[in-house]
Protein backbone atom coordinates (compact mmCIF):
# COMPACT_ATOMS: atom_id res chain seq x y z
CA UNK A 1 0.00 0.00 0.00
CA UNK A 2 2.65 2.51 1.03
CA UNK A 3 4.73 1.45 -1.94
CA UNK A 4 1.88 2.12 -4.31
CA UNK A 5 1.45 5.62 -2.92
CA UNK A 6 5.12 6.42 -3.03
CA UNK A 7 5.20 5.74 -6.78
CA UNK A 8 2.65 8.44 -7.50
CA UNK A 9 3.77 11.99 -8.28
CA UNK A 10 4.42 14.33 -5.39
CA UNK A 11 1.29 16.46 -5.65
CA UNK A 12 -0.94 13.48 -5.76
CA UNK A 13 0.75 12.04 -2.69
CA UNK A 14 0.43 15.41 -0.97
CA UNK A 15 -3.28 15.51 -1.77
CA UNK A 16 -3.73 12.04 -0.31
CA UNK A 17 -1.84 13.03 2.80
CA UNK A 18 -3.97 16.18 3.19
CA UNK A 19 -7.16 14.27 2.79
CA UNK A 20 -6.14 11.60 5.24
CA UNK A 21 -4.70 13.83 7.94
CA UNK A 22 -6.44 17.18 7.73
CA UNK A 23 -9.74 16.70 5.96
CA UNK A 24 -10.84 13.24 6.98
CA UNK A 25 -14.08 14.37 8.69
CA UNK A 26 -16.23 17.51 8.26
CA UNK A 27 -15.33 18.79 11.75
CA UNK A 28 -11.62 18.23 11.15
CA UNK A 29 -11.90 19.99 7.80
CA UNK A 30 -13.41 23.07 9.43
CA UNK A 31 -10.73 23.10 12.16
CA UNK A 32 -8.01 22.61 9.56
CA UNK A 33 -9.27 25.48 7.43
CA UNK A 34 -9.35 27.82 10.42
CA UNK A 35 -5.88 26.84 11.55
CA UNK A 36 -4.42 27.07 8.06
CA UNK A 37 -5.92 30.53 7.64
CA UNK A 38 -4.47 31.52 10.99
CA UNK A 39 -1.01 30.20 10.13
CA UNK A 40 -1.21 31.88 6.72
CA UNK A 41 -1.96 35.23 8.38
CA UNK A 42 1.14 34.90 10.54
CA UNK A 43 3.42 33.88 7.70
CA UNK A 44 2.05 36.59 5.48
CA UNK A 45 2.67 39.27 8.13
CA UNK A 46 6.21 38.06 8.75
CA UNK A 47 6.91 37.85 5.02
CA UNK A 48 5.64 41.38 4.40
CA UNK A 49 7.59 42.74 7.35
CA UNK A 50 10.88 41.16 6.32
CA UNK A 51 10.82 41.05 2.52
CA UNK A 52 8.25 43.52 1.21
CA UNK A 53 8.57 46.38 3.67
CA UNK A 54 12.08 45.37 4.70
CA UNK A 55 14.87 47.90 4.23
CA UNK A 56 18.24 46.76 2.94
CA UNK A 57 20.18 49.99 2.82
CA UNK A 58 20.07 53.46 4.27
CA UNK A 59 20.08 54.83 7.78
CA UNK A 60 17.80 54.67 10.77
CA UNK A 61 15.43 57.26 9.38
CA UNK A 62 14.81 55.30 6.19
CA UNK A 63 14.02 52.28 8.31
CA UNK A 64 11.62 54.17 10.55
CA UNK A 65 9.74 55.50 7.56
CA UNK A 66 9.38 52.10 5.87
CA UNK A 67 8.33 50.30 9.06
CA UNK A 68 9.75 47.00 7.84
CA UNK A 69 12.67 44.88 8.97
CA UNK A 70 15.71 47.09 9.29
CA UNK A 71 18.69 45.21 7.86
CA UNK A 72 21.03 48.21 8.09
CA UNK A 73 20.60 48.07 11.85
CA UNK A 74 21.83 44.49 11.87
CA UNK A 75 24.69 45.29 9.46
CA UNK A 76 25.70 48.05 11.83
CA UNK A 77 25.31 46.11 15.09
CA UNK A 78 26.11 42.50 14.27
CA UNK A 79 29.75 43.01 15.03
CA UNK A 80 28.97 44.26 18.54
CA UNK A 81 26.23 41.73 19.21
CA UNK A 82 28.45 38.82 18.25
CA UNK A 83 31.77 39.99 19.67
CA UNK A 84 31.00 42.62 22.31
CA UNK A 85 33.97 44.78 23.28
CA UNK A 86 36.60 42.50 21.77
CA UNK A 87 39.22 44.74 20.11
CA UNK A 88 38.47 45.58 16.49
CA UNK A 89 41.58 44.37 14.72
CA UNK A 90 41.51 41.02 16.52
CA UNK A 91 38.09 39.67 15.60
CA UNK A 92 39.59 36.74 13.72
CA UNK A 93 40.63 35.35 17.08
CA UNK A 94 37.22 34.81 18.71
CA UNK A 95 35.99 33.69 15.29
CA UNK A 96 38.62 30.97 15.10
CA UNK A 97 38.05 30.06 18.74
CA UNK A 98 34.35 29.57 18.06
CA UNK A 99 35.06 27.53 14.96
CA UNK A 100 37.42 25.29 16.92
CA UNK A 101 34.81 24.90 19.66
CA UNK A 102 31.99 24.10 17.28
CA UNK A 103 34.24 21.87 15.19
CA UNK A 104 35.31 19.89 18.25
CA UNK A 105 31.71 19.59 19.41
CA UNK A 106 30.77 18.41 15.97
CA UNK A 107 33.53 15.85 15.94
CA UNK A 108 32.47 14.61 19.38
CA UNK A 109 28.94 13.84 18.38
CA UNK A 110 29.58 10.28 17.16
CA UNK A 111 29.38 7.86 20.11
CA UNK A 112 32.04 5.62 18.56
CA UNK A 113 34.54 8.46 18.96
CA UNK A 114 34.07 8.69 22.72
CA UNK A 115 37.46 7.42 23.76
CA UNK A 116 40.79 8.62 25.13
CA UNK A 117 41.74 10.27 21.85
CA UNK A 118 38.72 12.54 22.17
CA UNK A 119 39.87 13.64 25.62
CA UNK A 120 43.24 14.62 24.14
CA UNK A 121 41.53 16.45 21.31
CA UNK A 122 39.49 18.42 23.83
CA UNK A 123 42.54 19.41 25.85
CA UNK A 124 44.23 20.66 22.69
CA UNK A 125 41.11 22.51 21.54
CA UNK A 126 40.63 24.06 24.96
CA UNK A 127 44.21 25.26 24.96
CA UNK A 128 43.86 26.88 21.53
CA UNK A 129 40.50 28.42 22.36
CA UNK A 130 41.82 30.14 25.47
CA UNK A 131 45.04 31.13 23.76
CA UNK A 132 43.15 32.71 20.88
CA UNK A 133 40.70 34.45 23.17
CA UNK A 134 43.14 35.62 25.82
CA UNK A 135 46.37 36.05 23.87
CA UNK A 136 49.91 35.65 25.10
CA UNK A 137 52.59 33.55 23.39
CA UNK A 138 52.89 36.03 20.54
CA UNK A 139 49.30 37.24 20.46
CA UNK A 140 48.24 40.56 21.95
CA UNK A 141 46.70 40.04 25.33
CA UNK A 142 42.93 40.58 25.56
CA UNK A 143 41.75 40.49 29.16
CA UNK A 144 38.53 38.61 29.66
CA UNK A 145 36.51 41.68 30.66
CA UNK A 146 36.66 42.43 26.93
CA UNK A 147 35.27 39.04 25.94
CA UNK A 148 31.65 39.09 25.03
CA UNK A 149 28.81 38.13 22.79
CA UNK A 150 28.51 34.70 21.22
CA UNK A 151 31.99 33.39 22.15
CA UNK A 152 31.32 34.22 25.78
CA UNK A 153 27.90 32.58 25.75
CA UNK A 154 29.25 29.48 24.02
CA UNK A 155 32.17 29.20 26.42
CA UNK A 156 30.05 29.69 29.53
CA UNK A 157 27.52 27.14 28.30
CA UNK A 158 29.93 24.50 27.01
CA UNK A 159 32.21 24.62 30.02
CA UNK A 160 29.15 24.78 32.25
CA UNK A 161 27.64 21.65 30.73
CA UNK A 162 30.88 19.71 30.41
CA UNK A 163 31.95 20.37 34.01
CA UNK A 164 28.59 20.14 35.71
CA UNK A 165 27.97 16.72 34.21
CA UNK A 166 30.67 14.73 36.02
CA UNK A 167 30.00 16.76 39.15
CA UNK A 168 26.34 15.82 38.80
CA UNK A 169 27.27 12.15 38.50
CA UNK A 170 29.36 12.33 41.66
CA UNK A 171 26.57 14.11 43.54
CA UNK A 172 24.02 11.58 42.33
CA UNK A 173 26.21 8.67 43.44
CA UNK A 174 26.75 10.34 46.80
CA UNK A 175 23.04 10.82 47.25
CA UNK A 176 22.50 7.11 46.70
CA UNK A 177 25.43 6.14 48.88
CA UNK A 178 24.97 4.04 52.00
CA UNK A 179 27.38 6.31 53.85
CA UNK A 180 25.26 8.79 55.76
CA UNK A 181 27.85 11.56 55.62
CA UNK A 182 28.22 11.52 51.86
CA UNK A 183 24.51 11.26 51.42
CA UNK A 184 23.75 14.21 53.68
CA UNK A 185 26.34 16.43 52.04
CA UNK A 186 24.82 15.72 48.65
CA UNK A 187 21.23 16.17 49.82
CA UNK A 188 21.96 19.47 51.55
CA UNK A 189 23.92 20.77 48.58
CA UNK A 190 21.33 19.82 46.00
CA UNK A 191 18.40 21.11 48.00
CA UNK A 192 20.05 24.43 48.80
CA UNK A 193 21.11 25.05 45.21
CA UNK A 194 17.74 24.05 43.84
CA UNK A 195 16.05 26.27 46.37
CA UNK A 196 17.62 29.48 45.11
CA UNK A 197 17.46 31.11 41.69
CA UNK A 198 20.57 31.22 39.48
CA UNK A 199 20.53 35.00 39.63
CA UNK A 200 21.15 34.95 43.35
CA UNK A 201 23.96 32.41 43.03
CA UNK A 202 25.58 34.61 40.40
CA UNK A 203 25.03 37.68 42.51
CA UNK A 204 26.55 36.03 45.55
CA UNK A 205 29.54 34.84 43.55
CA UNK A 206 30.10 38.32 42.22
CA UNK A 207 29.19 40.64 45.07
CA UNK A 208 29.25 38.71 48.32
CA UNK A 209 32.06 36.26 47.71
CA UNK A 210 34.77 38.98 47.33
CA UNK A 211 33.73 40.39 50.71
CA UNK A 212 34.99 37.19 52.34
CA UNK A 213 38.28 37.23 50.49
CA UNK A 214 41.29 38.86 52.13
CA UNK A 215 42.18 42.34 50.96
CA UNK A 216 44.04 42.42 47.66
CA UNK A 217 43.13 38.88 46.58
CA UNK A 218 41.46 39.22 43.25
CA UNK A 219 39.43 36.40 41.89
CA UNK A 220 38.52 36.69 38.25
CA UNK A 221 34.91 37.75 37.75
CA UNK A 222 34.30 35.60 34.70
CA UNK A 223 35.76 32.58 36.45
CA UNK A 224 33.52 33.22 39.43
CA UNK A 225 30.47 33.36 37.19
CA UNK A 226 31.55 30.18 35.45
CA UNK A 227 31.99 28.37 38.75
CA UNK A 228 28.61 29.64 39.94
CA UNK A 229 26.99 28.26 36.79
CA UNK A 230 28.73 24.90 37.14
CA UNK A 231 27.75 24.58 40.79
CA UNK A 232 24.20 25.55 39.99
CA UNK A 233 23.68 23.25 37.03
CA UNK A 234 25.41 20.30 38.67
CA UNK A 235 22.62 20.13 41.25
CA UNK A 236 20.06 19.76 38.48
CA UNK A 237 22.21 17.31 36.54
CA UNK A 238 22.61 15.29 39.73
CA UNK A 239 18.87 14.87 40.10
CA UNK A 240 18.45 13.94 36.46
CA UNK A 241 21.20 11.34 36.67
CA UNK A 242 19.88 10.02 39.97
CA UNK A 243 16.63 9.31 38.19
CA UNK A 244 18.59 7.22 35.68
CA UNK A 245 20.54 5.44 38.38
CA UNK A 246 17.47 4.37 40.27
CA UNK A 247 15.90 2.91 37.15
CA UNK A 248 18.71 0.38 36.68
CA UNK A 249 17.38 -3.03 37.72
CA UNK A 250 18.89 -4.78 40.74
CA UNK A 251 19.95 -7.66 38.51
CA UNK A 252 22.63 -5.50 36.92
CA UNK A 253 24.27 -4.88 40.29
CA UNK A 254 23.96 -8.55 41.15
CA UNK A 255 25.56 -9.67 37.90
CA UNK A 256 28.42 -7.24 38.45
CA UNK A 257 28.77 -8.46 42.03
CA UNK A 258 29.00 -12.12 41.03
CA UNK A 259 31.60 -11.32 38.38
CA UNK A 260 33.73 -9.83 41.14
CA UNK A 261 33.69 -6.27 39.80
CA UNK A 262 34.53 -3.55 42.30
CA UNK A 263 32.11 -0.75 43.18
CA UNK A 264 34.10 1.65 41.05
CA UNK A 265 34.17 -0.65 38.00
CA UNK A 266 30.51 -1.53 38.42
CA UNK A 267 29.52 2.11 38.41
CA UNK A 268 31.91 3.17 35.68
CA UNK A 269 31.29 0.39 33.20
CA UNK A 270 27.80 -0.87 33.93
CA UNK A 271 25.53 1.37 35.95
CA UNK A 272 26.47 4.90 34.87
CA UNK A 273 26.64 4.20 31.12
CA UNK A 274 23.14 2.75 31.23
CA UNK A 275 21.78 5.42 33.54
CA UNK A 276 22.94 8.32 31.40
CA UNK A 277 21.50 6.72 28.26
CA UNK A 278 18.12 6.47 29.93
CA UNK A 279 18.13 10.13 30.94
CA UNK A 280 19.29 11.64 27.66
CA UNK A 281 16.05 13.62 27.15
CA UNK A 282 15.95 15.28 30.60
CA UNK A 283 19.71 15.85 30.46
CA UNK A 284 19.42 17.72 27.21
CA UNK A 285 16.46 19.56 28.62
CA UNK A 286 18.64 20.75 31.49
CA UNK A 287 21.46 21.61 29.09
CA UNK A 288 19.16 23.69 26.90
CA UNK A 289 17.82 25.44 29.98
CA UNK A 290 21.30 26.29 31.17
CA UNK A 291 22.38 27.46 27.71
CA UNK A 292 19.66 30.07 27.85
CA UNK A 293 20.24 30.81 31.53
CA UNK A 294 23.82 31.87 30.84
CA UNK A 295 22.19 35.10 29.72
CA UNK A 296 21.61 35.89 33.40
CA UNK A 297 25.28 36.78 33.75
CA UNK A 298 24.23 40.20 32.50
CA UNK A 299 23.22 41.09 36.04
CA UNK A 300 26.85 40.92 37.08
CA UNK A 301 27.82 42.99 34.04
CA UNK A 302 29.25 40.31 31.82
CA UNK A 303 28.54 40.96 28.16
CA UNK A 304 27.12 37.70 26.94
CA UNK A 305 25.12 37.46 23.73
CA UNK A 306 21.92 38.82 25.23
CA UNK A 307 23.64 41.66 27.03
CA UNK A 308 25.51 42.80 23.90
CA UNK A 309 22.16 42.78 22.12
CA UNK A 310 20.55 44.89 24.81
CA UNK A 311 23.50 47.25 24.79
CA UNK A 312 23.35 47.67 21.02
CA UNK A 313 19.77 48.85 21.43
CA UNK A 314 20.91 51.76 23.57
CA UNK A 315 22.73 53.46 20.71
CA UNK A 316 20.87 56.82 20.43
CA UNK A 317 21.28 56.75 16.66
CA UNK A 318 19.52 53.41 16.34
CA UNK A 319 16.85 53.57 19.00
CA UNK A 320 13.71 51.53 18.47
CA UNK A 321 14.91 48.46 16.58
CA UNK A 322 14.57 46.00 19.39
CA UNK A 323 12.38 43.66 17.34
CA UNK A 324 15.13 43.19 14.76
CA UNK A 325 17.73 42.67 17.44
CA UNK A 326 15.71 40.12 19.37
CA UNK A 327 14.67 38.22 16.25
CA UNK A 328 18.34 38.03 15.36
CA UNK A 329 19.63 36.74 18.71
CA UNK A 330 16.51 34.65 19.08
CA UNK A 331 17.51 32.87 15.88
CA UNK A 332 21.04 32.31 17.16
CA UNK A 333 19.79 30.86 20.44
CA UNK A 334 17.28 28.77 18.52
CA UNK A 335 19.90 27.29 16.20
CA UNK A 336 21.98 26.08 19.13
CA UNK A 337 19.11 24.83 21.26
CA UNK A 338 17.41 23.14 18.35
CA UNK A 339 20.66 21.38 17.40
CA UNK A 340 20.95 20.07 20.94
CA UNK A 341 17.40 18.83 20.83
CA UNK A 342 17.88 17.12 17.46
CA UNK A 343 21.12 15.61 18.65
CA UNK A 344 19.47 14.16 21.73
CA UNK A 345 16.79 12.56 19.60
CA UNK A 346 19.44 11.04 17.39
CA UNK A 347 21.41 9.65 20.31
CA UNK A 348 18.28 8.17 21.80
CA UNK A 349 17.38 6.51 18.53
CA UNK A 350 20.86 5.18 17.99
CA UNK A 351 21.22 3.65 21.44
CA UNK A 352 17.66 2.43 21.35
CA UNK A 353 18.10 0.57 18.10
CA UNK A 354 21.08 -1.48 19.12
CA UNK A 355 20.54 -1.99 22.76
CA UNK A 356 16.88 -2.65 23.38
Amino acid at each position, binding site marked *: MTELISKKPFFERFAIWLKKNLFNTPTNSVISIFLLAFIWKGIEGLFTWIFIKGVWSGGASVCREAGGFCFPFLFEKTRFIIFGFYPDGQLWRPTCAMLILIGTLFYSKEPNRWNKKLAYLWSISTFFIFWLMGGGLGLTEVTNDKWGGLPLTLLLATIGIVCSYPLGIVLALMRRSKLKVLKSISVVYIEIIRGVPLISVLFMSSVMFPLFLPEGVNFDKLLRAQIAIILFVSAYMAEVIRGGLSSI*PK*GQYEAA*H*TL*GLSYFDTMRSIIIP*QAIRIVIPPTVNTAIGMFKDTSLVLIIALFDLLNTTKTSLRDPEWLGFSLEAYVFVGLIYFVFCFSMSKYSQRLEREFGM*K*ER
Partner: protein
Amino acid sequence: MSENMIEINDLNKWYDDFHVLKDINLSVRKGEKIVVCGPSGSGKSTMIRCINRLEEFQKGSLHVEGIPLNSDLKNIEQIRKEVGMVFQHFNLFPHLSIIDNLILAPMRVRKMPKKDATDMAMQYLEMVKIADQAHKFPGQLSGGQKQRVAIARSLCMKPKILLFDEPTSALDPEMVKEVLEVMVDLAKEGITMICVTHEMGFAREVADRVIFMDAGQILEENTPHEFFDNPQNERTKEFLSQIIN
Protein backbone atom coordinates in the same frame (compact mmCIF):
# COMPACT_ATOMS: atom_id res chain seq x y z
CA MET B 1 36.78 -30.69 55.65
CA SER B 2 39.18 -29.00 53.32
CA GLU B 3 38.25 -31.14 50.33
CA ASN B 4 34.75 -29.71 50.57
CA MET B 5 34.19 -26.81 48.21
CA ILE B 6 31.32 -25.48 50.24
CA GLU B 7 30.60 -26.10 53.86
CA ILE B 8 27.41 -24.70 55.35
CA ASN B 9 26.73 -25.18 59.05
CA ASP B 10 23.53 -24.28 60.89
CA LEU B 11 22.85 -21.37 58.61
CA ASN B 12 19.95 -19.15 59.63
CA LYS B 13 18.58 -16.09 57.96
CA TRP B 14 15.79 -13.71 58.78
CA TYR B 15 14.07 -10.98 56.84
CA ASP B 16 12.98 -8.89 59.82
CA ASP B 17 10.70 -11.33 61.66
CA PHE B 18 10.47 -13.75 58.79
CA HIS B 19 12.69 -16.79 59.26
CA VAL B 20 13.70 -17.64 55.67
CA LEU B 21 16.45 -20.17 56.24
CA LYS B 22 16.35 -22.52 59.20
CA ASP B 23 19.42 -24.49 60.29
CA ILE B 24 20.73 -25.23 56.83
CA ASN B 25 23.53 -27.81 56.76
CA LEU B 26 25.15 -28.71 53.49
CA SER B 27 28.56 -29.77 52.29
CA VAL B 28 29.44 -29.85 48.65
CA ARG B 29 32.47 -31.77 47.46
CA LYS B 30 34.74 -30.55 44.71
CA GLY B 31 33.17 -31.28 41.33
CA GLU B 32 29.86 -32.30 42.80
CA LYS B 33 26.63 -31.40 41.01
CA ILE B 34 23.72 -30.55 43.22
CA VAL B 35 20.18 -29.86 42.18
CA VAL B 36 17.96 -27.93 44.58
CA CYS B 37 14.21 -28.04 44.23
CA GLY B 38 11.19 -27.15 46.29
CA PRO B 39 8.03 -25.10 46.18
CA SER B 40 8.04 -21.40 45.46
CA GLY B 41 9.07 -19.28 48.42
CA SER B 42 10.87 -22.14 50.14
CA GLY B 43 14.15 -20.24 50.24
CA LYS B 44 16.08 -21.91 47.41
CA SER B 45 17.24 -18.67 45.85
CA THR B 46 18.01 -17.17 49.21
CA MET B 47 20.19 -20.12 50.13
CA ILE B 48 22.32 -20.13 47.02
CA ARG B 49 22.56 -16.35 47.05
CA CYS B 50 24.11 -16.60 50.50
CA ILE B 51 26.97 -18.57 48.99
CA ASN B 52 28.24 -15.60 46.97
CA ARG B 53 27.13 -12.99 49.48
CA LEU B 54 24.30 -11.55 47.44
CA GLU B 55 22.44 -12.13 50.70
CA GLU B 56 23.77 -11.92 54.22
CA PHE B 57 22.88 -14.40 56.93
CA GLN B 58 22.57 -13.85 60.63
CA LYS B 59 23.57 -17.13 62.23
CA GLY B 60 25.73 -20.12 61.41
CA SER B 61 28.76 -20.38 59.18
CA LEU B 62 29.56 -20.76 55.52
CA HIS B 63 32.97 -21.67 54.12
CA VAL B 64 33.96 -21.63 50.48
CA GLU B 65 37.21 -23.49 49.86
CA GLY B 66 37.92 -23.15 53.54
CA ILE B 67 37.53 -19.38 53.49
CA PRO B 68 34.91 -18.23 56.00
CA LEU B 69 32.28 -15.95 54.56
CA ASN B 70 31.92 -13.18 57.12
CA SER B 71 31.97 -9.42 57.04
CA ASP B 72 35.68 -9.45 56.13
CA LEU B 73 35.74 -7.67 52.78
CA LYS B 74 38.90 -9.47 51.65
CA ASN B 75 37.21 -12.83 52.07
CA ILE B 76 34.06 -11.68 50.34
CA GLU B 77 36.05 -10.42 47.41
CA GLN B 78 38.01 -13.61 47.09
CA ILE B 79 34.88 -15.74 47.24
CA ARG B 80 33.10 -13.56 44.70
CA LYS B 81 35.85 -14.33 42.21
CA GLU B 82 35.57 -18.07 42.74
CA VAL B 83 31.79 -18.34 42.62
CA GLY B 84 29.97 -17.62 39.38
CA MET B 85 26.23 -17.27 39.07
CA VAL B 86 23.67 -17.60 36.30
CA PHE B 87 20.35 -15.88 36.87
CA GLN B 88 16.82 -16.60 35.85
CA HIS B 89 16.64 -13.34 33.91
CA PHE B 90 20.17 -13.52 32.45
CA ASN B 91 21.17 -10.05 33.69
CA LEU B 92 23.37 -9.37 30.68
CA PHE B 93 24.64 -5.82 30.34
CA PRO B 94 22.38 -4.43 27.61
CA HIS B 95 24.67 -1.55 26.61
CA LEU B 96 27.62 -3.82 25.86
CA SER B 97 28.04 -6.18 22.93
CA ILE B 98 28.17 -9.89 23.70
CA ILE B 99 31.93 -10.01 23.51
CA ASP B 100 32.24 -6.94 25.75
CA ASN B 101 29.87 -8.54 28.26
CA LEU B 102 32.30 -11.45 28.43
CA ILE B 103 35.65 -9.67 28.57
CA LEU B 104 34.75 -6.90 31.02
CA ALA B 105 35.31 -8.81 34.25
CA PRO B 106 38.40 -10.76 33.16
CA MET B 107 40.01 -7.48 32.13
CA ARG B 108 39.00 -5.49 35.19
CA VAL B 109 39.18 -8.12 37.91
CA ARG B 110 41.78 -10.55 36.61
CA LYS B 111 43.70 -7.77 34.80
CA MET B 112 43.86 -9.82 31.63
CA PRO B 113 45.07 -8.07 28.46
CA LYS B 114 42.24 -7.39 26.04
CA LYS B 115 43.53 -9.76 23.41
CA ASP B 116 43.84 -12.73 25.75
CA ALA B 117 40.43 -11.99 27.24
CA THR B 118 38.89 -11.86 23.78
CA ASP B 119 40.49 -15.15 22.73
CA MET B 120 39.24 -16.83 25.87
CA ALA B 121 35.78 -15.32 25.50
CA MET B 122 35.55 -16.60 21.93
CA GLN B 123 36.41 -20.08 23.12
CA TYR B 124 33.59 -20.02 25.63
CA LEU B 125 31.19 -18.61 23.07
CA GLU B 126 32.23 -21.48 20.83
CA MET B 127 31.48 -23.88 23.63
CA VAL B 128 27.97 -22.51 24.12
CA LYS B 129 27.59 -22.55 20.31
CA ILE B 130 27.05 -18.87 19.84
CA ALA B 131 30.39 -17.53 18.59
CA ASP B 132 28.75 -16.08 15.48
CA GLN B 133 26.76 -13.64 17.65
CA ALA B 134 29.80 -12.13 19.40
CA HIS B 135 29.29 -8.63 18.07
CA LYS B 136 25.57 -8.37 18.55
CA PHE B 137 23.92 -6.75 21.54
CA PRO B 138 21.93 -8.71 24.14
CA GLY B 139 18.71 -7.11 22.95
CA GLN B 140 19.18 -8.77 19.56
CA LEU B 141 19.32 -12.33 20.92
CA SER B 142 16.65 -14.84 21.86
CA GLY B 143 16.15 -15.88 25.47
CA GLY B 144 17.97 -19.15 25.03
CA GLN B 145 20.90 -17.42 23.37
CA LYS B 146 21.01 -14.81 26.13
CA GLN B 147 21.18 -17.48 28.80
CA ARG B 148 23.99 -19.26 26.96
CA VAL B 149 25.87 -15.97 26.79
CA ALA B 150 25.29 -15.50 30.51
CA ILE B 151 26.78 -18.94 31.16
CA ALA B 152 29.78 -18.14 28.98
CA ARG B 153 30.20 -14.83 30.79
CA SER B 154 30.36 -16.60 34.16
CA LEU B 155 32.86 -19.11 32.80
CA CYS B 156 35.18 -16.35 31.64
CA MET B 157 36.00 -15.67 35.28
CA LYS B 158 37.04 -19.33 35.58
CA PRO B 159 34.98 -19.88 38.71
CA LYS B 160 35.45 -23.03 40.75
CA ILE B 161 31.78 -23.05 41.66
CA LEU B 162 28.87 -22.15 39.46
CA LEU B 163 25.45 -21.36 40.90
CA PHE B 164 22.34 -21.49 38.75
CA ASP B 165 19.07 -19.94 39.90
CA GLU B 166 16.30 -21.35 37.74
CA PRO B 167 18.26 -20.77 34.53
CA THR B 168 15.54 -22.09 32.24
CA SER B 169 12.33 -20.97 33.88
CA ALA B 170 12.13 -17.66 32.04
CA LEU B 171 12.58 -19.36 28.67
CA ASP B 172 10.11 -20.50 26.07
CA PRO B 173 9.88 -24.30 26.08
CA GLU B 174 11.69 -24.71 22.76
CA MET B 175 14.74 -22.88 24.13
CA VAL B 176 15.02 -24.82 27.36
CA LYS B 177 16.74 -27.71 25.63
CA GLU B 178 19.59 -25.70 24.13
CA VAL B 179 20.44 -24.23 27.51
CA LEU B 180 20.21 -27.56 29.32
CA GLU B 181 22.50 -29.13 26.72
CA VAL B 182 25.13 -26.54 27.48
CA MET B 183 24.72 -27.17 31.19
CA VAL B 184 25.10 -30.90 30.71
CA ASP B 185 28.31 -30.34 28.73
CA LEU B 186 29.53 -28.09 31.48
CA ALA B 187 28.76 -30.66 34.16
CA LYS B 188 31.10 -33.09 32.41
CA GLU B 189 33.97 -30.60 32.75
CA GLY B 190 34.26 -31.18 36.47
CA ILE B 191 33.15 -27.79 37.75
CA THR B 192 31.23 -27.71 41.03
CA MET B 193 27.60 -26.86 40.33
CA ILE B 194 24.61 -25.99 42.46
CA CYS B 195 21.52 -25.61 40.41
CA VAL B 196 18.05 -24.55 41.46
CA THR B 197 15.79 -26.07 38.84
CA HIS B 198 12.67 -28.09 38.35
CA GLU B 199 13.99 -29.77 35.21
CA MET B 200 13.82 -33.32 36.43
CA GLY B 201 15.40 -34.80 33.31
CA PHE B 202 18.43 -32.64 33.88
CA ALA B 203 18.56 -33.58 37.54
CA ARG B 204 18.48 -37.28 36.73
CA GLU B 205 21.17 -36.99 34.10
CA VAL B 206 23.60 -34.72 35.88
CA ALA B 207 23.01 -34.44 39.60
CA ASP B 208 25.01 -36.33 42.19
CA ARG B 209 22.51 -35.27 44.80
CA VAL B 210 19.08 -33.69 44.80
CA ILE B 211 18.04 -31.48 47.67
CA PHE B 212 14.46 -30.72 48.55
CA MET B 213 13.66 -27.52 50.43
CA ASP B 214 10.44 -26.40 52.01
CA ALA B 215 9.72 -23.46 54.30
CA GLY B 216 13.39 -22.62 54.72
CA GLN B 217 14.54 -26.13 55.61
CA ILE B 218 16.28 -28.91 53.78
CA LEU B 219 13.78 -31.73 54.14
CA GLU B 220 15.32 -34.39 51.98
CA GLU B 221 18.64 -35.07 50.33
CA ASN B 222 19.36 -38.05 48.12
CA THR B 223 20.73 -39.40 44.85
CA PRO B 224 18.45 -38.50 41.94
CA HIS B 225 17.47 -42.08 41.49
CA GLU B 226 16.36 -42.52 45.08
CA PHE B 227 14.94 -39.04 45.27
CA PHE B 228 12.58 -39.35 42.34
CA ASP B 229 11.71 -43.01 42.52
CA ASN B 230 11.59 -43.47 46.24
CA PRO B 231 10.98 -40.18 48.06
CA GLN B 232 10.88 -40.48 51.84
CA ASN B 233 9.28 -37.25 53.03
CA GLU B 234 5.56 -36.63 52.65
CA ARG B 235 6.17 -33.08 51.43
CA THR B 236 8.59 -34.37 48.81
CA LYS B 237 6.04 -36.84 47.53
CA GLU B 238 3.42 -34.13 47.34
CA PHE B 239 5.79 -31.77 45.56
CA LEU B 240 6.93 -34.37 43.04
CA SER B 241 3.40 -35.35 42.20
CA GLN B 242 2.62 -31.68 41.58
CA ILE B 243 5.48 -30.98 39.22
CA ILE B 244 4.91 -34.14 37.26
CA ASN B 245 1.41 -32.99 36.41
